[in-house]
């Protein structure tokens, strides 16, 4: 019951994050959306840990937070470099990966 609510919240956050990643043009907003996705996953971990009674999930959530911090650091640095080169952080203008 309580745990199911957590899962529902997690799913909602995940969907919002996915929408942000796909729909937003601003790179910073995309990074924030990715954070939302990660938090949704962490919430799921904690919720499942609550259901199973084992502590593993909570430990994993801590790991996710730590890794997410590093990942945001790298992402923001990339955004910064892109901005310096192009004076813009609009993602739809970036198509150098076109194959």
């Amino acid at each position, binding site marked *: 019951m309580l745990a199911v609510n957590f899962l529902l919240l997690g799913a909602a956050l995940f969907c919002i994050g996915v929408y942000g*990643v*796909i729909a*937003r043009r601003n790179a910073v907003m*995309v990074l924030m959306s990715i954070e939302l996705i990660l938090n949704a996953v962490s919430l799921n971990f904690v919720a499942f840990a609550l259901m199973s009674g084992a502590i593993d999930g909570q430990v994993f959530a801590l790991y996710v937070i730590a890794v997410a911090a590093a990942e945001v650091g790298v992402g923001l640095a990339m955004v910064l470099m892109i901005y310096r080169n192009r004076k813009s952080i609009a*993602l739809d203008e970036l*198509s150098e990966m076109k194959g």
Partner: protein
Amino acid sequence: MLAAEAAQLSSGWFLENVWLIALIPIVSFALIIAFGKHLPMKGSEIGLASMFASLVLATGTAIQWIQRTNSASGGEESLGMLQAFGRSMPRATEGEVQPFIEPVVHTWVWWSNGPLEFGIGSSASGLSVLLLWLVAFISLLVQVFSLDYVRGDRRYTHFFAAITLFSGGMLVMLMAPNMVQLILGWEIMGLCSFLLIGHWWEEEANSRAALKAFFTVRVGDVGLLVGTAIIFFGANAWAVDNLDSNGFDINAIQAWALSGEANSKFLLWGAIALFIACIGKSGQFPLHTWLPDAMAGPTPVSSLLHSSTMVVAGVFLVAQLYPVFWQAFDIGQGSLTFIAIIGAITIIIAALLAFVQDDIKKVLAYSTVSQLGYMMLGLGTGAWLPAVFHIFTHAFFKCCLFLCAGSVSHSGSHHSFDMKKDMGGLRKKMPITFTAWIISTLALTGIFPFAGFWSKDEIIDNVGNNGYTFLMWVGLGGAVLTAAYMTRATYLTFFGEPRGAAAGEHHGDEHAEEHEMEHISVGAPEPRSLGAAANAHGGDDHDAHDDHHASDGPHESGPLLLIPIVILAFFALFAGLANPTPLASRFGEGIESMKKYVEPRSTPVPFEDVIATGPGESIMLVDGRPAAAPSSEGEEGAKKSGCGFDAPEPGTACFFPSVSHAEPSFNKILLSLGVVAAGYAVAIAFNIAFYGRKNKHLVGLTERSKVMRGGFLFLKNKYYLDALYENVIVRAVAHPIAKGTNWFNQNVLDATVNAAGEGARRTGVWVYDNIDQKIVDGAVDGSGWIAEETGHGLQSTQSGKVSQYGALLFGAAAVGAIVLVLVNVS
């Protein structure tokens, strides 16, 4: 009994930490190898320091062992020998049961295999403490001697590393609480003897000698492995049941052998296999041939190898596992044993061989073989204590003799060992070496106050006393021969006219014997220490002995060579007083300190007092109290009962058989002294006639008389044993194998290989035509085409837009998630 009440045995730090004695040289070995070359004395200081530390520890251990033994007697003899002088009690009839003095065991688990655990550590018993001290002492002196003797050698650092490890290996073996560690030390020594004998491997003869020593000893080593395995399978069940130990533990093996429940077949075959190992290691007939060849090594190595390490290992093994041999060969019943026969043969044949050697070191080598024969003869006939005592005294005088030979060759004969060509008349030029040589020779031949008299005569006396009259005469005959060949060597070296190098001649390197460092150091990059340089420039001719090209004629050696010789000569004079049995009737039994402190007491001990010491599964006693006072003690029949004759009471264990000791008698001493004196007289007369006055009847006798010539050649060729081994046995075994292998190689293997090659070629052609061209190439071409087409088809998705990629990613993840849910739910 008083002793039984206060039987809490004392121990101490040194006894608990005996393992340090062996660990220090082994660690030093690694240090010398790693850092030796960068040190001011090229690593020799580490070797010396380690041997000195070992000697200090061993001395402490010996003192504490004596205290421990004294404490077992309830403090009654705490004043030691001094008080014992007072009571002139008759021997061994006091009715007093002396408690068994348990060894101090300290072990760790080395490795374990299922329920079996192997320990490594130390076990200090009287025998091992005695020999630990002896090895540390002799090794230290030999290393001091080597400082000067091998100075300037190309592999100076490696020499010290190997000789330190060599001593370390012997120490590991001596303190072994179980058979596994004993084998470990035994093999370390085998390896180091190979390294040291072949130290000057540039000359082929030296590396051949090293290989011969290694392989001959290995033949015996097979016996050690097999014997250990046999004893293990025989003893393990008993040891686990009764002592909570295992079949590798040496104390458990001793107890098992005397328990009366030992399977006699296991005992017999185990003892035979173990004794074969001793034949190889201790140079007994018929595997003695490696010992004289081992003279190819530097003299300090020969000295160490022949006095206290290596060759003594075999004797030690027999002495340590004595109950096994005692029971297996029925030594207690006075039967003619394998060990005694081999020992007796060795005494005579080696002594005879010593007569025809021209190399002074080879004379001494055969003398060692012969003396080892005495030790084995003693052990084989129940004379345990005299044999062990002979190890002790022999180490001093034999080491001294070898060092004297080294000194003579270093300073007197221009690095030659040939007595006939390069020696003679050296007694005036080298007075100290000469004096030490004479003292040691008298000790070796068993003249009254010298060390050898007390031990060798004890062996001969006890052999006779235990009922082996014939073997006693063999021993006496050996003593005559010893006196004679030592007279010959002494005469040739120190008396008569100087010859060759001893007369000051210089004659290049044409001698095969001249493999001492002469030509090795030539061309070596002169890495001499400061001390050596100062020495060489000191201007004193006598001290510049390392500079052998500057020496003109023989002179006395320098102090570094002489100090060890003098110390050893001192011990060769007085070491016998450690156990002067013939004096015991006069001064009381307490004067026999070897008997008191070294010989284990044959007292049964209850199982409850024997506990496993945990990790290494070695056994220890809580309390050395005798289980029950043997009722027959003191009676006339006491001699043939007790441990080693009857099975001990149920629930008790014996660790040593009750050996009997001969009553010394004045007549026997006179007999052996007279026999030796006769040997001397004949030999001196003969030598003067033969070598001195060139008596016409004697000179050239071997050319004129067929019988004499045959005998001479027979000896000169060492009974053709080497020829037998190399030409007959090795050839008989190795040649058919080599031939068969060759045939097999040519006809079977080559044919197979050829057929396989041809088959492979044909298969290759077919494979190329069909599979490679059609299937593989087709597949590669086809996959390339598919990739190309797919690429074109998917090109439109690669827009380069991150958000589109993200959408595809999440879309695919969602599809995957849905599939997963459907699969799991349904």
